Every structure is written in C-alpha cells, then in structure tokens.
C-alpha cells in the first residue's frame, strides 16, 4: 500500500494529476474537484467505472479522454456491476497468473451522480455492496439530474426548485425529504461509509484513502455543488460548500463496519440554514412569506439530524 502523504496542502500538491484538463464539465463544477482529489490521494493503479452523468459525458467525448487510468462507462445504472466484473476478473487472472503484472497494486473505484446512485442505479449498487467486492463507490451528489437539465432526484432536498418539482403559485418545490443513502449503505454491512465535502479537502482525502485501503465495498457520498442548477456563480463553489457544511445541511461523518459513527467536522459557529438557502437561486422562492414554514421545517430537520448523529456517535451505534 503506497499512499502519498497528505500532511498538508503543500505536500499534497506535489502529487501529479491523473485527471486531465480540457474535459467539458461546467466552469466551477465540484465534480472535478472531487475526482481530482480521489485520484491524487493515491499512487496505486486505478480501474474506474462511471455511471452515465455529467462526469461521464464530459470526460470521454470521442476522440478525447481525460482519464490517465483505465476507465469504463457502460450505462446510467451499472457502473457498480462493471467494477464488480473487473474486480472479479482481476482475482481470476491473478490466481491464474495471466496478468501482465500480477503484483501491481490496483484499486477499483466507481463514480455515480445522485441520480444514478439514489435512483436508477440503486439496485446495481446494492447488489455490488452486498456481494462484497473490493471497491469504493463515490457518489457525486449534486442533488438533481444536472446532466439532463436539472430534474428532481430522490437526493433533492425538501423545498428545492427543480424542473420536475417546480416552485410556483401552488408549490414550494420538492415536497419529499432527501433519501438517507449513507445509512442505507451502512446497513449493507459495508466496512466503511462516509459523507464528505470538497471544501474540507483534508478530511475528504483522508476519507478517500481510508476507503481505498479498506478491503471490501466502501461507499462515500460527497456533496458536489452545481452552479448551473443550484444557481450560484461558478466562483462560489467552495463558498457554497462551506455554507453546506457550516449550516450542517451536509454534515460530514463516517460509519465503520455499520456501527461506529464518527463525526468528521464540527462547525465552530453553526450557521442558520437561511444563509445556505439564500445563496442559491433554487431556494429563492422559500423567502416569500407563504413559504416561511418550509425554511422552518428544513431547519428543524437539520437540528434533528444533527442531534441524532451526535447521539449515535456517543452511543457508538
């Protein structure tokens, strides 16, 4: 296991990029910040599978690839199956001695957006987690189907406006609570599950390294602010992520072996959720007087969830 040290950012920056520029993700997209960090936090060989989504359509547009490692895309839902097959093949060929370099260290990684993770690819992901393949699945959670122009997914939070859960005179946007994918993945008995954010680069890199080092299926949900569909300026991607983690709209924590929960970031000053909501166009309508109750509900949900996470951490469950 040769993982590069990440004591501080200066040291981290000596790693060489394996995710190349001139991909076609939007300016300011957090997806590539997250992917770069995953690929830069290890020097092992990587085999990567991607579900269809923003990341996939922007990084392998014929005749160009932005991937310096082996990479495969099949469909919207099946990157977990593709990586299962590749991992099984590695085992088989290692056993039979047919690999070009049987000793070369390799990690198997799958990427999916929230649409493919929470919704259409949920079964494929669940199957791969249950079978116990040695891989890390990373969800780039931008809380909507951004690649098709911003439709609601089951990761879209209450109150957000999307093109298929619109805010209007008779609606305040999405009515349903965001699916708790992290708990569902932990319930699979996965050895390592975490929720991370790119603004906390060090915690994220450590989480990635932990997942890569851990044998068995690991799952990481990363918040990936989407300037295009959340409606904020591209330059503010990290600022918005700061608000997401400091309002606890997006708490950072890990669950080890399904029961040991550790909170990875405790804001010194917990901000009110209005600060986060007000910075994004998708929540603009919530500031109308008739939607005040929605903001109150979101704040209550955050407070309840944070209380629960702290109780779970204390109780080690």
């Amino acid at each position, binding site marked *: 296991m040769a993982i590069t040290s990440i004591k501080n*950012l*200066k*040291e*981290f*920056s*000596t*790693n*060489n*990029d*394996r*995710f*190349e*520029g*001139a*991909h*076609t*993700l939007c*300016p*300011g*997209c*957090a*997806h*590539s*910040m997250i992917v*770069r*960090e995953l690929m830069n936090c*290890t*020097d*092992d*060989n990587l085999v990567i599978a991607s579900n269809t989504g923003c990341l996939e359509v922007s*990084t*392998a*547009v*014929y*005749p*160009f*690839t*932005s*991937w*310096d*490692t082996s990479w495969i895309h099949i469909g919207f839902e099946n990157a977990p199956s593709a990586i299962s097959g590749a991992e099984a093949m590695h085992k088989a060929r290692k056993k039979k001695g047919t690999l070009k*370099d049987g000793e070369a260290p390799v990690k198997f990684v799958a990427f999916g957006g929230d649409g493919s993770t929470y919704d259409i690819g949920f079964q494929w992901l669940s199957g791969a987690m249950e079978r116990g393949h040695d891989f890390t699945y990373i969800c780039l959670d931008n809380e909507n189907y951004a690649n098709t122009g911003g439709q609601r997914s089951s990761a879209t939070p209450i109150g957000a406006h999307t093109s298929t859960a619109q805010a209007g005179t008779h609606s305040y946007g999405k009515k349903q609570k965001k699916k708790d994918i992290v708990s569902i993945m932990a319930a699979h008995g996965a050895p390592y599950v975490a929720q991370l954010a*790119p603004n906390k*680069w060090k915690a994220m890199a450590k989480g990635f390294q932990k997942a890569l080092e851990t044998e068995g299926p690991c799952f990481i949900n990363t918040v990936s602010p989407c300037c295009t569909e959340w409606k904020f*300026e*591209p*330059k*503010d*991607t*990290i*600022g918005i992520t700061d608000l997401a983690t400091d309002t606890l709209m997006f708490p950072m924590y890990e669950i080890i072996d399904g029961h040991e929960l550790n909170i990875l970031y405790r804001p010194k000053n917990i901000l009110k959720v209005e600060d986060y909501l007000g910075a994004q166009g998708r929540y603009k309508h919530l500031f109308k007087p008739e939607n005040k109750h929605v903001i109150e509900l979101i704040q209550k949900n955050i407070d309840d969830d944070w209380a629960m996470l702290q109780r779970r951490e204390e109780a080690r469950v």
Partner: protein
Amino acid sequence: MQDLKLKAAEKRGVHQLGGDNLVGWDEVTQGIVLTSFEGDATDVAHKKAEERSYSDFNSYTATVASWRVMKPVFNIDVCIDCQNCWVWCPDSSILSRDKQMLGIDYDHCKGCEVCVEVCPTNPKSLLMFSEYEDLGDALASWPEKKKKEKK
C-alpha cells in the same frame, strides 16, 4: 511569471475539442477504445505532466481556452504557495511544481474564478482580468494591500 514554458507545453492544448481532423475512418478503433498515453505508461502517477508521453486522445492535448471571457492572472510576488488554488481548481490548471505555484495553464483554464475566490493573500495573488488584457498591464495595475475594515 505566467504560463511557464514547461516542456509539456509542446503537447498541451494543441487540439481543438471536436477533433474532426484528429482521426479518420482508419483510426476508428475497435470498440471506440481510447488510449491515454503513447508507449509504456507504467508508473505514470509518479511522473509530472512534462515527463509523460500523452497520446493525441488525451484531453491534456486539447484546449478549452475559447470558453473563457475573463482570465485569472497570477502574481508570484504576493503568492504564499498555500496551494488552495491547486486543490480546488476543477480544471487541473494550476501549475504547481515542488510545492510552488508557478502559473496557470491557459489551455485548460475555463475562467471559473474559483482560484481567485479561495486565494487567502492580501491583496490576492490571483485576480480576474479581461481575456484580452495584457499580462504586464494586469500586473502593473495590481491593487495594494487592503487595510482591515473597521467595524
């Protein structure tokens, strides 16, 4: 110092996206498979960009410079090499070598301004200018250190 002429610049940004002239009927490979490098790419993780043999299919050889309206300009005199811009650049466009920030890869930078936003120095070591602004003029017009605003 801007856009250092690292050796890799030879192969960087030479292709326009679309690549109509890059491949023909004969080059349409079986299964549309693309190779990232020419020759043996073992241990590529330990090689700097300028030490690698990128294939023509690697997007490293392409450019998205035309996406930009504004460009970030880097002022090395103010920079503290914190590497915030490096870690958060979504386009792998911060040229850092040996813990030092050297400049911006204008072939891959889309002008998102994240680097400017996360720069902690006072004044900032990265600022946005018009794409057509002369780099010398930009540096000459760099602002002074801002005093802390009194509350």
